[in-house]
């Protein structure tokens, strides 16, 4: 579903990604872990078509980036630590706006379906500025799945959430992944990543330095694997 070969990203003289290779099979849930400044967000922004690769080949869902970016965007759902929602619009107005931008049919039916999925059906007429951070993040996931994407990208979705909100977000993430979507998530929360993901890749200094599936990790825990990958 995602195939990245020898990806390089430079901002001026600074090289962020240094020949990164990465691939994800359909239906996989990959947690992309790594220290601050490793290039996780930059990499996700390239996959999300928000940034151009300097060198290398990037294929998402059979489409080449950056040349077929519009086709890729139709298949992508992106959630970052910012909700990408308009505070002066209600929950359903936000979803309707994004639904129109994606040209989806059966709009009202789909909005209800999405609001039920994220548990905000009874707050559909409320303005986003009255929502808590956790509720905004749940609606952000609703916004990202409004067009039923095949690939989901989550960039630090737990940032700023308390324990209760994080647990609710876990449920929403599980339901998103349970529908057979391919998911790539960056996170610093190793415990949550360990519970949700089926594969763990460590990104350090612009390259993937280690990768392990959930089955392979049975012998050790994710924290030990993460520490070892950074030391190596």
């Amino acid at each position: 579903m995602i195939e990245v070969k020898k990806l390089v990203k430079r901002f001026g003289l600074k090289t962020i990604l240094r020949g990164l290779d990465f691939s994800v099979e359909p239906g996989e849930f990959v947690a992309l872990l790594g220290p601050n400044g490793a290039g996780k967000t930059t990499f996700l922004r390239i996959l999300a078509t928000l940034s151009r690769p300097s060198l290398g080949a990037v294929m998402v869902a059979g489409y080449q980036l950056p040349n077929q970016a519009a086709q890729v965007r139709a298949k992508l759902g992106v959630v970052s630590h910012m909700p990408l929602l308009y505070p002066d619009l209600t929950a359903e107005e936000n979803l309707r706006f994004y639904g129109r931008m994606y040209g989806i049919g059966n709009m009202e039916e789909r909005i209800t379906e999405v609001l039920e999925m994220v548990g905000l059906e009874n707050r559909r007429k409320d303005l986003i500025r009255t929502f808590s951070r956790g509720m905004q993040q749940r609606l952000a996931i609703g916004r990202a799945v409004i067009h039923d994407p095949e690939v989901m990208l989550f960039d630090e979705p737990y940032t700023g959430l308390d324990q209760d909100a994080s647990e609710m977000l876990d449920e929403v993430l599980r339901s998103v992944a349970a529908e057979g979507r391919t998911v790539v998530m960056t996170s610093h929360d190793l415990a949550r990543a360990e519970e949700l993901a089926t594969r763990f890749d460590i990104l350090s200094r612009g390259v993937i330095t280690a990768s392990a599936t959930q089955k392979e990790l049975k012998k050790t825990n994710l924290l030990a694997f993460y520490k070892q990958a950074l030391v190596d």
Partner: protein
Amino acid sequence: MMANNSESKKKKVESGKRKAESLHPSFFKATLAIIQKDLSAEFRSFELISAMLVFSLLVIIIFNFALELDIKVRQSVTSGVLWTTFAFAGTLGLNRSMSVEKDRGCMDGLLLAPVDRSVIYFGKAISNLIFMLIVEGIVLPVYSVLYNVNLFRFDLLGVILLGSIGYAAVGTLLSTMSAQTRTREVLLPILLFPVAMPVLLASVKASNGLLAGADFTEVLTPINLLIVYDVIFIAIAFMVFDFVVEE
């Protein structure tokens, strides 16, 4: 078994491709969605229009006290006062309109939509133009009363419309650029005024001529210039917007 597996993956990618191709909103509908979103949000908060309006009214009231009461002097400065007011108030609106998109990451939300990126430009430019026209629609009668000048003439309103189109067209492009910097409030006027100078000069010249009672044919040159500038600015913005929003 392996062959079956790769076959099913291939089918999944193919069905995904079909789905992606079916998700393709029209240029017009997506532009309309952005305009309606901006108007709904603004008519709920009135943050942008109220700031532009209060600023405009303050400027014309200050000029009212500062200028001589002589009717001839007032008529001669009307176009200058009006366009100074519209230009500065417009800058306030342009800054606010783009910072709403940038501050909460909503610009990324727009850029993630599977539409041509010029849709975002046209949607935002038309919204900005509507906000400018609303403020102008309130400022003009107030100005007419305070300065005792009749501004409700079709030819003059046409010039104001053309000038506002040019200003919103170039202002939207430059505010998208400046919104990506930390000093956007300072940077926008510095970038905008030199570039928008031809639009402002042509607008002042045409308005001045019309208010002085000149024949329409006499002000045809600045009006033609305004039309040409509007077309050029819109065409350039359409071509370069993709590069402006790209990292």
